[in-house]
């Protein structure tokens, strides 16, 4: 019983070690793309204007 519990804990720990960095990377990646491609700030829009059009992000 105890052995089984330890094994389950190991699996959960290993899984969270794998999932946590992926979730952080996914969120940070989305943050960067949204910042460059979707932010409504006029300054960011003007700086990234050609990039937004070339990547076909909805612009203006």
């Amino acid at each position, binding site marked *: 019983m105890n052995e089984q519990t330890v094994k389950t804990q190991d699996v959960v720990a290993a899984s969270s070690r794998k999932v946590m*960095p992926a979730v952080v990377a996914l969120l940070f990646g989305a943050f960067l793309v949204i910042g460059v491609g979707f932010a409504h700030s006029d300054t960011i*829009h*003007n700086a990234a204007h050609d990039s937004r059009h070339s990547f076909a992000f909805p612009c203006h």
Partner: protein
Amino acid sequence: MFRRIFATALLAGFLGGLGISIVHEFTTTPIILHAEQFENKSNTVDQKSSSKQNALLILAHGKAGNAAKNGHQAWGPANGWERTLFTTIANIITGVGFSLILVACFSLSEGTVTGRAGVIWGMAGFGVMSLAPALGLPPEVPGALTAELVPRQSWWFLCVAATAVGLWMLVFRKGVVWVIAGIALMALPHIVGAPQPARIGGAVPPELAGHFAAASLVTAAIFWSLLGWLSGTFWQRFESRS
């Protein structure tokens, strides 16, 4: 694991963003600059005309439109090397962002990801982020008439999310039910329909707008293949160090 993910994405994103900036310089950017000549001409005509509604619709695109909205002129890079530099920086940040998303998928997937497998992941990224949204919202040149920005952005996110989950169902789940559900989910945003402009016939000639739509999609395909290959290659190379 954190170090491996971020090292891969930084390197792949930097090189991919830099590479696609060179491609853009000879493909999409000349069309954008050409289209802006028509857009600026149209803005001048509209500023002179008494038709306030039309003027606001088109002016909303340019710096003049932003100034009209906010009462001041927002900063923008000067034409020439400054504009190219900021476009390159924007492309690199976008490259790092998309590579982080790709590498996050690598780390969750079972099996080894190499440069070649990375290209297939990159093609999935192209399908999800570029191809599927282009059906409802074709790549737009400056000066094109469009619907309101926020509904278009919302539809873009809906389309990307539905296509990504639908593709995952098709590729990684087994059984007819998953296939049907995946296809239905991928079709959903197109059945709902993307927001369309109230009227068409913008300032830019359709030949130029059509050429831009094709150039944008072709360069996106190049970008995603390159980013997928770079991400897969560095991901494999950094394996022993993690």
